[in-house]
């Protein structure tokens, strides 16, 4: 990720506090809230950070790649004058990037077609199109019971040791929209805090399936800087928005694992000495997660769509834990994977909810309302799912 180069840059050498992912920069009068800065460490290494808070005396800056090796005397902070922007383009397809958005596949730099704000903008609710086109994932428990539709955000609540990533990988390569096979369908994959083993599994899986050239991979590994994870899903979604709403692709975004993202969020909140909410997670976690999940959707008069598949590990299989709980409130539908009596895996439909978009998705056009038989969003219309 390269910030804009401008004719003059402001450099400050007024760091007064370094702790965890946070530094304070004194007398930072020209600094903007939310601005991206470059921090030059004593050994001339450059790291990126973002301004969280500014006041008359100082600015609070979070450093994505950690603060190890920074000092107070000689660390310099270079201002960019702009909020974080990511160089997006169709050239990203087929590329593997790190959690910061820099190429991680020995390939050449990506030719940017535009620089888009990584935080995105909220879609005007008045122009959203209601999701109704069925995506066949090839996983019967999802297709039959928790149908995925274009523009939806479907969470998969998993437990540690369960093959949620295998499921995600399978969906990445097998998913298709019935009757629209020829349409441009791409996958943006954002991995946060996954292990080398998992990352190489994904890479190999995509290479073997021949889908790699229709995929953008963002990989933040478990031993990469934690705070970088706050950026990774936003880079992935900015890329997805560009591909979907500017280039007309149907984009499936896979976010794994949001639990690691939330832990990074908590780490920053704790370093800032904020009042903690439930289990130490910050009180604004709902809003923060919403700014990620709500970037799924379809827009009237725009051909593309963004569909999200979100993997959330439930600590101790507890669905009332703040991370799955808040994710469940924002996302649409739920698919549960459960430990049960030594069996390694069960994709158990029982605790999963079908949100109502299933109805619209499986209804043949012009056939009028479907008689659901039972009450509420029941399982009635499942049999109308068009077969392969």
């Amino acid at each position, binding site marked *: 990720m390269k910030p804009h180069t401008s004719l003059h840059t402001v450099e400050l050498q007024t760091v007064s506090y370094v702790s965890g992912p946070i530094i304070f920069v004194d007398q930072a009068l020209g*600094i903007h809230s939310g601005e991206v800065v470059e921090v030059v460490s004593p050994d001339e290494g450059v790291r990126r950070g973002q301004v969280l808070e500014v006041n008359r005396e100082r600015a609070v800056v979070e450093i994505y790649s950690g603060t190890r090796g920074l000092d107070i005397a000689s660390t310099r902070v270079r201002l960019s004058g702009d909020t974080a922007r990511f160089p997006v383009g169709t050239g990203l397809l087929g590329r593997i990037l790190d959690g910061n958005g820099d190429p991680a596949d020995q390939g050449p730099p990506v030719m940017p077609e535009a620089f888009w704000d990584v935080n995105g903008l909220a879609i005007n*609710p008045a122009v*959203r199109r209601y999701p109704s086109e069925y995506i066949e994932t090839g996983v019967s428990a999802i297709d039959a019971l928790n149908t995925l539709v274009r523009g939806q955000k479907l969470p998969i609540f998993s437990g540690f040791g369960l093959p949620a990533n295998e499921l995600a990988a399978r969906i990445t390569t097998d998913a298709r929209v019935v009757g629209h096979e020829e349409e441009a369908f791409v996958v943006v994959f954002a991995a946060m805090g996954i292990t080398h083993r998992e990352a190489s599994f994904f890479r190999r899986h995509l290479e073997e399936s021949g889908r790699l050239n229709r995929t953008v991979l963002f990989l933040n590994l478990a031993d990469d800087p934690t705070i970088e994870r706050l950026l990774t899903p936003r880079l992935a979604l900015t890329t997805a928005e560009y591909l979907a709403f500017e280039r007309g692709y149907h984009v499936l975004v896979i976010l794994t694992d949001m639990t690691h993202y939330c832990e990074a969020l908590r780490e920053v909140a704790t370093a800032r000495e904020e009042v903690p909410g439930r289990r130490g997670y910050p009180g604004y976690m709902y809003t923060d997660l919403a700014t990620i999940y709500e970037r799924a959707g379809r827009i009237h008069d725009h051909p593309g769509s963004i569909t999200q598949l979100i993997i959330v590990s439930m600590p101790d299989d507890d669905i009332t834990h703040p991370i799955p709980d808040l994710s469940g409130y924002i996302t649409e539908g739920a698919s549960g994977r459960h430990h049960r009596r030594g069996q390694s895996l069960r994709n158990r439909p029982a605790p999963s909810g079908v949100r109502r978009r299933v109805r619209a998705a499986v209804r043949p056009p012009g056939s009028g309302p479907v008689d659901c038989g039972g009450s509420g969003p029941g399982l009635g219309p499942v049999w109308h799912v068009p077969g392969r």
Partner: protein
Amino acid sequence: MTTVNTGKLVRIAGPVVVAEGLTGARLYNVVRVGTNRLIGEVIRLEGPEAVIQVYEDSSGLQVGSPVEDTGGPLTVDLGPGLLGNIFDGVQRPLPALAAGPDGREVDPFLRRGVELPPLNPGREWDLTFVVGVGELVEPGDVLATTQETEAIEHRMMVPAERNGTVTRLGASPATAADPVAWIDGQPVPMTTTWPVRTGRPVARLLDPDVPLITGQRVVDTLFPVARGGSATIPGGFGTGKTVHEQTLAKWCDADIIVYVGCGERGNELAEVLEEFPNLTDPRTGARLMERTILIANTSNMPVAAREASIYTGITIGEYYRDQGYDVAVMADSTSRWGEALREVSSRLEEMPSEEGYPAYLPSRLAEFYERAGLVESLGRTPRRGSVTVVGAVSPPGGDFSEPVTQYSLRLAGTFWSLESDLARRRHFPAIHWTRSYTLYQLDDWFDGRVADDWADQRHWASRLLGEVEQLQQIVQLLGVDVLAPAERITFQTGRIIREDFLQQSAFDQVDAFCSLTKQYWMLRVIRYLHEQLLGCLHEDTDVDELIGLPIYDLVARMKSWSGTEAEDQAKALLEAIDAELSAA
């Protein structure tokens, strides 16, 4: 609004910023922040510094950015053109924001600092004048009317604190900015404004004694809410809060629906927007969207505007109430609103109380819920109108002991308890039959309007469901065989009430709305069958045979009766019960 004073920013922390130099700014004045002129509101004054919550994303601001005081509190524009429209939390019209100057859709994203009048300034309205020149008028009197939509006549009233003689009438047709009339030489514009945090004045509050009919059996029969009352629906995710709120918005017999989507999913609002324009109001035959006003602040829109959205919604509701309409304000969800309070409070570094919520959470919730009411409006010829508040609550982890649920329970008169256990068993609406309650005494109304034994039947049903709950515990421990024959029948009737009466499909064309007559006759059939079965019992009766009677299949089909023929169908079924039992 003219600019009163200008200051400079000294601190920016997310949605909360601090400015100095805003001398004379009052608490809750609206300010414009930065060069983008973002909308903000003063929420604390500390010596020379004013703490401001910003209704838009604050990134890009810097220390020293200008802040302008507009000199007034946050207001909404009230006038014809509200119905059928969609606004954000601070009443910016969302369809107009998306459309370019030529009306074509150009920008699907919400940009910052955009300013548009809430009501279309170019639209002309045909006025019918109700008063004449020389007439003495007081606040609340209707000056003129216009047909806002097919079913709703918009009544333009004399604003509060204006009275005198009508000296001149306005022209017709007129636009939003044109005067309707002149009182003592001063013009009264068609569009008036009102501060959102202040309730609109009324002549007097009445005791709510008329139910809001929703067509939902579990609501109307067991836990009705009064017009001018308030209800709360807590439930974990996936229990159907939003479906329930939308079902009420579709079917309830209020004249106007204000639907506040507060911190919820964008796709849900898209669903309302795609569905409502295609549905017709069962009572007026007009399009459902024409009686609906949407306030949309999805979860990714700025958090401070989420806090304001609820007040914006209820103020618009009160405006139509004062015109003499029954209004239902649906807030989905008040938890997100509470979280917005919490988020702003923690940025203010206030001392947190329960679960990090600020200590003023209960008083703020009360300020919202207590704006519900059945009222007699101001004016020489008072009109009766009401605002009914239905607030959804999303308790974290589905735990009802959390503060927002608890304080809502204290304030709301009706409690619909959504249970994830029922939702999991596909019992919808997942409103629990013994844990929910209503505090409104509406039996007299039902007895007078539907059938004189409505209340009696209702109490029978809730008593029986309570008994079944106790039997359930025994059955779980020991099995159904230990029950006495009469208890077996009670147990069976409990199941019939749950499955064939309380369960109702929101997506079935016939079953989605159930008239009061149909509700009455359905329950009457179930009660009759129950009592006849009990009457059949003697020592050597085979209970298994009784509860396996084929008549139950007919009872299970009661849901598909159409509203008009329910009474005839029920009477036929009562005869069939007699016939089958005498044969058995």
